[in-house]
């Protein structure tokens, strides 16, 4: 069934039809969000939130882009909001730990459990500027072409190519700094 017809029916009051869109796009949205947060549970929570917000914003979907493009934009915004919130929380916990008010035991345990190299890679991805990060994740996790990325990010293909080149260069520099001396 055509997506636009489904959306019109949902807006007409057939809420149950929304489940069709959710089932269709759960995997791609989840995969995209995983590229930002790297934790399954968090990615599921954010994915759920993406669909809730998309449902309530359905009346504002103007059909200038495809539904998937519009949905991915919501997913990117939600993911980056989550990352900012997590950084603020981590900074606050560090402050509390400094004054002895809170033990960072939880985060230390998590750090011990995971591989050091994976942690460095996640840090490298998180330190990318927002647009470079978006382009990189859309390219690597969603396997989108530069043309598709350009359409989603409202950029030219040349600009997307530049973003991807700079992202790779920045990641390389980060890994160089983190690599132990021979």
């Amino acid at each position: 069934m055509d997506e636009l017809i489904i959306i019109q029916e949902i807006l007409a009051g057939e809420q149950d039809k929304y489940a069709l869109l959710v089932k269709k796009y759960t995997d791609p949205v989840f995969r995209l969000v995983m590229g930002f947060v790297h934790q399954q549970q968090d990615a599921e929570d954010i994915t759920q939130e993406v669909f809730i917000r998309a449902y309530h914003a359905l009346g504002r979907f103007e059909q200038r882009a495809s539904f998937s493009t519009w949905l991915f934009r919501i997913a990117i915004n939600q993911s980056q909001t989550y990352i900012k919130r997590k950084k603020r929380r981590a900074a606050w916990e560090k402050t509390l730990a400094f004054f002895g008010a809170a033990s960072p035991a939880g985060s230390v345990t998590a750090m011990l459990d995971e591989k050091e190299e994976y942690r460095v890679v996640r840090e490298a991805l998180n330190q990318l500027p927002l647009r470079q990060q978006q382009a990189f994740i859309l390219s690597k996790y969603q396997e989108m072409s530069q043309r598709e990325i350009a359409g989603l990010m409202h950029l030219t293909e040349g600009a997307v190519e530049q973003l991807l080149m700079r992202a790779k260069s920045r990641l390389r520099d980060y890994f160089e700094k983190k690599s132990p001396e021979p």
Partner: protein
Amino acid sequence: MKKHERYEQVMNEMIRQEKEISPDPWLHSRVMARLSKPESVPAGWLPVILKPALAAASLLLVLWLGIQTGSSWKQEQGSAAVVLENDYHAEHFSFYTQAENE
């Protein structure tokens, strides 16, 4: 191998692994269940304006009640002063030395 190449290999492996993770197969049910609850409706413009308006109205009400309470207490003080004035004459020594009062 160059220094950064090891990390790039790890990154590619991590991306491959994360792309293979599947979400909860019942996630769509969780979404629909949340949408069916009344509280799933996000706050519109009305609550955004209503909350500060209610807070301001509560503050004004408390201030008004305080002013009203203070005003009524002053009135009570006025009637008590009249009684004290009468007591003064009864306690004045000249009241007891006047011959016509014996």
